[in-house]
Every structure is written in structure tokens, then in C-alpha cells.
């Protein structure tokens, strides 16, 4: 008998966006409050995992057509690039820069290059976690 997952699938579609937005919030909150790239990345993975539970792996690959190995590599490059930027200013490796900017929509905002490093961590966590899930779950 074919099982009918209509409640699970509908709920997953809604809940996915709630978890995803929460993960983005956690990711941006990292500098002043608990959170950051690692938990943010894991929460995003959790959101995608919920979709994987509600639908099958092929559908997910169609709606999220990324190569997650490449995503890991991009994340690593972003993290290393942020840290290595200091080489060009001849200051010790990993020296971060920050400043206050007046952005159009956000108003007065303080920006820090640690954010770029964190987004590298975020991409690595999402990329490697989804790669693990796909390669374990994808074997038939």
C-alpha cells in the first residue's frame, strides 16, 4: 500500500523556512550573542534534513542542485582567504579588520571580517554534513 505523507510534507514545507530563518538569525547573532557559523550551519543542515525525511533524496537534489563537496571547498577558501588577507597588509596572519558603516536599509551597522570567516565555517559545515547524509542515504 502506498503511504500518504501529505500532512508531513505540508508541515515540512512550512517548518523548513522557519528553521532556515532561525539558522540565519543564529548565524548573524554570533558576534554578540550565543550562535555563530557552526550552529548556524548545523541548523541549516537540520532544515534540509527535514525536507529529506519528508521527500526522497532525488527530489532534494533537484530543488537544491548544489555540489556540496564544492560548497565545502568554497567555504574553506573563504575562511582561508579572510585569514590570509592580512598577509597583504604585512600584519600577523588572522588579523581582522572592522568598521562602522551607514548602509541603506540597515542604518548604522558595525561590520567585521570575522563575519566572512564565519560564513566560510557555515558553508563548510553545511557542505560536509549534507555530503555525509547524501553518501550514507544515497546508497541503494
Amino acid at each position, binding site marked *: 500500500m502506498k503511504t500518504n505523507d501529505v500532512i508531513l510534507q505540508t508541515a515540512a514545507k512550512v517548518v523548513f523556512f522557519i528553521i532556515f530563518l532561525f539558522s540565519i538569525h543564529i548565524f548573524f547573532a554570533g558576534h554578540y550573542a550565543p550562535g555563530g557559523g557552526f550552529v548556524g550551519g548545523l541548523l541549516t543542515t537540520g532544515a534540509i534534513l527535514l525536507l529529506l525525511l519528508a521527500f526522497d533524496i532525488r527530489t532534494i537534489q533537484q530543488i537544491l542542485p548544489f555540489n556540496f*563537496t564544492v560548497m565545502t571547498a568554497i567555504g574553506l577558501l573563504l575562511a582561508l582567504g579572510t585569514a590570509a588577507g592580512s598577509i597583504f597588509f604585512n600584519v600577523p596572519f*588572522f588579523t581582522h579588520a572592522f568598521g562602522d558603516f551607514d548602509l541603506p536599509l540597515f542604518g548604522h551597522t558595525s561590520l567585521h571580517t570575522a563575519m566572512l570567516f564565519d560564513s566560510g565555517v557555515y558553508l563548510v559545515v553545511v557542505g560536509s554534513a549534507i555530503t555525509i547524509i547524501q553518501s550514507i542515504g544515497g546508497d541503494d
Partner: protein
Amino acid sequence: MINLLLFPIIIPFFFAMILMFFKEQVVVQRVLTLIGLAFSLVASFWLIATVKTEGIQTVTLGSWPAPFGITMVSDMFSALLVTTTIIITIFVAIYSFSSIGVERERFFYYPAILFMITGINGAFTTGDIFNMFVFFEVLLIASYLLIVLGGEKRQLRESIKYILVNVISSAIFVVAVAYLYSIIGTLNMADISVKIAEINQPGIISVIAILFLIVFGIKGAIFPLYFWLPNSYAAPPIPILALFGALLTKVGVYAITRTYTLFFVHDIGFTHQFLMVLSLLTIIAGCIGALAYFDLKQIIIYNIIIAVGVILFGVAQMNTSGLEGAVYYLLHDMLIKAALFVLIGIVIYATGTSNLREMGGLIKTHATLGWMYLIAAFGLAGIPPLSGFLGKVLITKGAFEADHVIGSIIILVSSLVVLLSVIRIFIYAFWGPQKNELPIRDQRTYRQMMFPAIMLVVITVAYGVGAEWLMPYMTDAANVLADPSIYINAVLKE
């Protein structure tokens, strides 16, 4: 260029990331690997020149003041080790072009090697004990991939043991660092050294010293903790075995050397005596193993264990001759083990077996291979003009100066056993009548495999012959080990 000492770590790391974009293009991977390693080699030679002229190089990451940020320290000892690591990796990478097989090359083989080099160079360069743990994990996780890559049954079985042993030793490492932190309150290695000197190493610090010896002893395969090594190292293909044998145990040896010359120097009667007894037992255990087997791989693998014992015996003397000898012998052993593993890899390729009893008469068909192997074997045993001689002479000299007569006699006798074990390979494989029909092999592949082997043997010969020219560098390295205040002043700049 205050970041110069980081280049041998960053460049392989960067190229490993780039290689992840080209999973299927094997040719691109090979070319990029060589380019990355060549850049790293240039950077590391530049680093040696800088350390030679300007003294110890330090940089504290993130522009923080010294004990608060992660400090990276490059003294002559670590600069020499970093350079040797990169040289070996270049030739093993060239060797794997023709021997590892496209299937493995397509599955992140070169990125794994480069990540492993990142971890090894980082562990050699770091000046922070927890950062050393992180770099250990970087190199170990890359080595987990390398040991299981290919998925043969034997590899799967041995990788489970290897991972299990290393996970446990990493957990003990964390516990040891936690104990040390709870007593000392700092993780910067120079600062730890200062604080231990202030409290004059009470009993609990000696306990932590033994705990560190257990941790690094599992990684570096000393006497009761080497049990995992012979089988695990025999499982992966030869190029991976060459990298593991030449580099991985030496990171453990480096870590013991660093901690036992920088931190735990106030109760030598207990800690270094303990280290010395263990190193002698390591030599004896290795000698027994090296004579017991008729398998090419196992004989050379047990020679790794002997060499670990010899180096640590030199370190345990804590005098200039012993430390100089240990530095010289450590670099020699990394080069010669890479050369020997590559050479026996070619022997196994040529005969199709690793069992000595089934070989014979190779000198008639593979003369160059035979003579190269003989030179490498003499170099390993320490016949005078070759590279193994001076290190062992200095180590035994240091031991006689410290009145450890029995220990130095064991070292000298172990050289004979080493010579016997490797010459047995020569006699069985190269002399006598041909026992089995040799499998038909492509001559071009064979020549491609011989090139890195010959280059490595030439480098070891040059290392032995050019000892006079290299000695100032070894002396610089040993001086920092013998006198921790040089290291501390360079880092804390007081």
C-alpha cells in the same frame, strides 16, 4: 614578511582546497599538486635562510600579544623538519603518478596528501599546545582517508584499528592538556615552560610528563605502544606507506622532543630516565621484529620503530652531542625511510610479491635498482660516508658523555641488526638464481618509478657527504633544544 613561517602551512592547504574543484581531472590534479609543493619548497628554503640569519621567527596570530594569541614559532629544528617533509612529499607524489592508479587519484588522493602536509607542517611549527592537538587531528584525519582509500578488505580492517588507536590517544591528549591547563593556566608553550620553571616541576607535572609521553608515544610508536603500527602500515599501497613511515611517526617524535626539552626539564632523573629506558626497549623490540619477518614491508616497518628508539635515546641524554645527533638522525631517517619504501615498492612491482622467499636474481634484470637499494641500505645502517653515520656517532658520543654505556652499546649493536635485516633483503631478492618468472611490466612505468627513488637516494647521499656543510644548521637546532630560554625569549620578547 612577518608571515613567512606560515607559508609552508598555508600553501599546501590552499592547493588542497583548489584540488577539490577538480575531482575528476587527474592530470590537472597532478600538475597543481607539483606546483603547490614546489611553491612550499621555495618558501621553506627561504624560511631556513631567514631563521639562519635572523634567529627564531615567531608570529602571534591575530596581532594579539604573545601568551594570549596562538603563537607560531619557527626555530631551526622545525624549519629543517618542514623542509624535509616537503622534499619527501614531492618525490612520493611523483612516485604515485605511476603507481597509485587512476581510481584512487580520482577520489581526493592528492588533496588528502596536501591536507596531511598542512597538518604535519603545522604541528612542527606551532607554539601552542592545544593548537598542536588541532594540527595532529588535521594530519590524522587526512591519514584516515589515505589508509582506507581504495577500500580493499585488508585496508578496511586495519583502518578500523588505526582509527580506534588514534581516537583514544587523541582523547588522552585532550585530557593531558586539560590537566596541564588546570595547573599552569596557560596553553602557550613558551609560557608553560616559564610557569613550570617557577613552580619547579612538582610531582603532578611529572605525571603529566608521563601522560604526554604516552600520548605522543602512541603516535610515534615507542615500546609498549607500537603494537598497532606494523599491521596498519602494511595495509595501504606503497606511496602512502612511504609517506606514513617517513612523516607520521616523526611528528610524535618531534612532539616528545619538544615537550621534553622545553617543559619537563626540572626532574630529569625521573622523566628522562623513563624515556631512555623506553627508547632502549623500543630499539630491542624493533630489532626482534626486523629479523623475524620474511616480508619486505614488515622488515622496513620494524626499522621505523628502531629509528624512533634511537632518536629518543639521543633526546633523553639532554646534552649537546645527544641532541645534535638526534636532530641529524631524525632528518636522515625521514629521508632514508622514504627512499627505502619507494625502492621496495619498485621491488614489489617488479616481482609481484612481497615475500622474500619467492624472490631471487633481480640484479641480473634490475641492476640500477639493486645498487640503489644497496646504497640506501648502507645509509640506513650508518656506513661512514653515508647519512646514517654522523647522527649515530653523535648520539653514542652523547651517551658516553652522560655515562650511559649500556645504552650506547645497545645502539651500536642495533646498527648491526639493522644492517643484517636490510642486507637480508638484498641477498634474497637480488642474488642467487631467479626463482619465479617475473611478471611482464611496462618499462616506461618502471623508469618513471625509478626517477623519484634515485633522487631520494641521491639526496640521502648528499646529506651524508655534505654533513660538514649542514652541521651549523644542526647546531642551531640543538642549541634551541638544549637551552629553552632562547625559545622563551624569542616568543615572549621580554
